[in-house]
């Protein structure tokens, strides 16, 4: 089943066209990375897919046009992890992760056993269970990032849209994160995450979507997308591309001239 589909989506921010007629589909069981240089439109694409900003063109979520879904139905279909790791109040980590259950609970309903189980599982997955009683504002940057990812996991949606989830994590937790997202895909969910670490993306994602100046310029397996030509044309870099432990290894080496 298609988890989300963008059909010639154009987005203007402050009158400037940021996405130019982008079409993209994500099916269940896929962990796709959205890559591209700064300003390529990755965050804009993720926000448009989540219905957070006005966009022209067709956007559908869980097979239904976005406009016809209620806000709760949207929130049950797709979780969104924002790039800004904002936590306004010093609520505990457990309370923060519990916010992921928002679309599953009515206004006056207390948390159910199922809610609690999802929160526990999400905290364990992101290794923040032992921080449960700590105020979220007092965590380190990486810890807070993990708590916020756990919040998105607790939302328990078929689709996860994550904006730079790996940024600021130490290597061990980056790998944990990739494993968790791969597990979600293996469970039949879909993940679309924007990433800057090409090595991480190449190694863990089954699909890469390369965005350049508001257009998708390559879409496919890591091998098909991370070609020397694409890297030079889009990023303006030269990279070592090899294989190790059964996966692709990408290590940027130098800038190409003329950029």
């Amino acid at each position, binding site marked *: 089943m298609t988890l989300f589909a963008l059909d010639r989506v154009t987005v203007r921010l402050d009158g400037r066209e940021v996405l130019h007629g982008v079409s993209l589909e994500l099916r269940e069981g896929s962990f796709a990375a959205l890559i591209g240089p700064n300003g390529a439109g990755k965050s804009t694409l993720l*926000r448009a897919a989540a219905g957070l900003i006005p966009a022209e063109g067709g956007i559908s979520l869980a097979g239904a046009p976005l406009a016809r879904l209620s806000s709760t139905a949207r929130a*049950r279909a797709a979780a969104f992890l924002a790039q*800004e790791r904002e936590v306004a109040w010093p*609520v505990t980590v457990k309370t923060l992760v519990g*916010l992921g259950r*928002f679309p599953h609970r009515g206004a006056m309903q207390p948390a159910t056993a199922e809610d609690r189980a999802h929160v526990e599982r999400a905290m364990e997955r992101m290794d923040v269970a032992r921080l449960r009683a700590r105020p979220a504002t007092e965590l380190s940057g990486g810890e807070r990032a993990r708590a916020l990812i756990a919040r998105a996991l607790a939302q328990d949606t078929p689709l996860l849209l994550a904006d730079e989830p790996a940024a600021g994590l130490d290597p061990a937790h980056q790998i944990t994160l990739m494993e968790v997202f791969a597990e979600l895909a293996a469970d039949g969910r879909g993940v679309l995450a924007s990433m800057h670490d090409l090595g991480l993306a190449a190694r863990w994602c089954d699909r890469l979507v390369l965005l350049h100046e508001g257009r998708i310029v390559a879409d496919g397996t890591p091998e098909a997308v991370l070609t020397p030509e694409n890297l030079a044309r889009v990023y303006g870099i030269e990279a070592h591309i090899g294989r190790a432990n059964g996966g692709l290894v990408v290590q940027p080496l130098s800038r190409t001239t003329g950029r």
Partner: protein
Amino acid sequence: MNLRVPYPVLIAALAVTVALLFGLSLLTGSAELGLGESLSALFADGGSGGSGGGNVVAIVMQEIRLPRALLALMIGASLGLSGAALQGYLRNPLAEPGLIGVTATASLGAVLAIYTGISAAVPLALPAMALAGAGLAVLLVQLLAGGRGGALTLILAGVALTSLAGAMTSLALNLAPNPFASLEIVFWLLGSLADRSMIHVQIAAPFILAGWLMLATLGRGLDALALGEETAASLGVRLPLLRLLAVVGTASCVGASTAVAGAIGFVGLVVPHLLRPFVGHRPSRLLLASALGGAAMLLLADIAARVLAPDEDLKLGVLTALVGAPFFLWLVVRTRRRLA
């Protein structure tokens, strides 16, 4: 910084405090009345009659003290609740109910009623014009901030409106027809619950209750909003609706409060701030706690105003600021020490 008090215990303690202060407020007044006498008079017949023949103590209890205590309760709760709601919505602990311009415009409406002499000619013209001012504030703020605007535009629109209404209030004060009118305007602006009647309760109650209902629905949305507007929207919070309810709910209950009691500051700022650590900083839980805390604080202030200076008609707004401002400074110093 999270002070561990179970939420039901906190709410129960605050509710008991409010109940006790409400009772104490009923027992405070220039007439020396015994406890039993007062309480039986409160429920006696014949309270709502004319001066002829009625039970004097019953009239004092039912027509003079009861409305005053009820208004302190309702207005204090409104200020605490809307302060908590706005701080939650704007994610800023310095937000207070006056921020969106309602207090200033409601005051302006009241001042115009005094200035033009309508308040003396037509009973209830003052609260009616103050309510109209609050209503106008909502329209203008929504218009200025735009349908989809975020928190910042709301603050800016509120600040602009407050300045404008404040300037017009000063102008009315400058142009007042005689020194007595100026004095009445100044006194009114300081806020007071003295000699309010059941009619004031009846005028304010529908708006205050409507405001409470609107603000009470915000809790979950405010919790989610702690993670930012985008994340909240992705969790299913309808932000335009949330803002509309926050603004209209605040305007409704604070506008009605200002209409009958004048501008009473600091309660809406200090109370949520004070209680936040006791509810684990959760905006949803802060709403009820702040409403009760605000009611307790205003009841206490109004009792203090009568006990400390029975002959002076000490203005409530003055008293809340006198107590609130040093307390707030203490909070600031404590916060700074913790951050240092």
